[in-house]
């Protein structure tokens, strides 16, 4: 089904926070241009998976192949330079930086990133608030800033950790439209979600994560047939 051509191939990924063993052999693949979600309950290890892929967890083992290159032993700044960019769940907007400084903070890692004007076109709110302190923005605007700033860098593999969490439905729709736009521009997106109804509007495939392992994979066109199974996995 997915041969060696996948852009990201994670094999037997284990990760630890201090003494606690969080990931127990994560295994999944993401193909170029796909939008793939990691679904699962709180504490299943979805965020940890993203951080382990990005090299943000010092204690990790296994294999993370990106475009055929092994990333597992690289520090996170080198992983970012390969073209992966992470947008954390808590958004990570810097309070001592204004909106413009936040937006232009991440350095370009590859050619072909969006220009500031492209980003303002997708997120018009940001342009009007450039001088504001980053953390004075509304939750939705902060999310837009957190995603906008990684679009500038030329990274073409985006790891978005619960981008819709805590946002009003109209903003969630905007974020959904943005993810579809990114897909149409050829970006690859790995998305962490708790809300599979939202995930099904943007994604190609879904991996279900439980206890630090992938326990199932569901293609998006099969999601209707598997709703009951998904609900039991996610405990909704």
């Amino acid at each position, binding site marked *: 089904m997915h041969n060696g051509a996948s852009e990201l191939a994670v094999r037997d990924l284990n990760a630890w926070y201090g003494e606690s063993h969080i990931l127990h052999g994560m295994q999944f693949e993401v193909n170029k241009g796909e939008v793939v979600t990691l679904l699962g309950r709180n504490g299943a290890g979805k965020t940890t998976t993203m951080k382990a892929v*990005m090299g943000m967890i010092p204690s990790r083992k296994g294999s993370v192949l990106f475009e055929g290159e092994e990333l597992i032993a690289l520090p996170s*700044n080198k992983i970012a*330079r390969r073209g992966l960019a992470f947008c954390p769940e808590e958004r990570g907007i*810097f309070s001592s930086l204004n909106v413009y400084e936040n937006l232009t*903070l991440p350095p370009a890692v590859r050619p072909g990133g969006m220009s500031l004007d492209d980003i303002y076109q997708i997120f018009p709110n940001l342009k009007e608030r450039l001088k504001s302190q980053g953390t004075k923005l509304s939750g939705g605007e902060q999310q837009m800033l957190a995603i906008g700033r990684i679009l500038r860098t030329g990274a073409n593999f985006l790891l978005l950790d619960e981008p819709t969490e805590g946002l009003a439905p109209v903003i969630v729709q905007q974020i959904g439209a943005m993810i579809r736009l990114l897909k149409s521009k050829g970006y690859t997106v790995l998305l962490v979600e708790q809300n599979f109804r939202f995930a099904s509007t943007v994604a190609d495939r879904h991996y279900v994560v439980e206890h630090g392992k992938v326990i199932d994979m569901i293609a998006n066109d099969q999601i209707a047939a598997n709703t009951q199974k998904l609900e039991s996995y996610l405990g909704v």
Partner: protein
Amino acid sequence: MFELLGIAPQALFGQLLLGLINGAFYAMLSLGLAVIFGLLNVINFTHGAQYMMGAFVAWMLLEWVGVPYWGALVLVPIIVGAFGVLLEKVFLKRLYHLDHLYGLLLTFGLALMIEGVFRKQFGSSGLPYANPLPGGTRLDFMFLPNYRAWVVVASLVICFGTWFLIERTKLGSYLRAAVERPDLVQAFGINVPRMITLTYGFGVGLAALAGVLAAPIYSVNPLMGSNLIIIVFAVVVIGGMGSIMGAIVTGFGLGVIEGLTKVFYPEASNTVIFIIMAIVLMLKPAGLFGTPK
């Protein structure tokens, strides 16, 4: 007006100038401490010893190699800063995940060792460093020595240059961001461990630069740093740990207040800074410019 207060204008302005000079050193030293504490979370007790090393390296360059004062201003911060980089790479970086106390103990121990080596080598009576700008200007109310005027101007340039670098440039935005979320800044592709090392080197270089500026004023003495460092820590506490502007304003301000105290109530001049510190800690525990955590 001065006669009314029973104070000669010469005494007043003389002490004001002295206060401004002391304040310039408080500001430059507390600035380096603030920069280091902000990013490394280390209370750098070696700062006074590094300031002293700045003065000594300037003296050595002059006496042994013949490098004049103006050359030392450029070379000394680089030499002592490189020594700081070495300290960070060998010792400090092992302590970041531990409590502040460990960094404080380590840097305090290092300060004692460095001062001990210099005392053994050079004695503690102090070495003279020739004034590179002799002479002065006679103003209506006081005599202004050229070198002291230069120190005030140079320290203002250094302080506001550092403030600009950190608060208004791209490099500064990396530093400020890394103070908040080093992991995320690194995941954006920035080599944060190297930035931390260089920041420590920069802070140490600032202390050494202050040491060069101090050499012609105070004699070059192995204990010149430990005499100053306690007051500088009080300045940092009053200004707010990690605040750049706080360090600058409080440094100069307290120098001037100390100078004025010498005119109006000399008995309190040695303690006034600590009295202010106690009051500030009671009213604003995070310091005048600090943000409560």
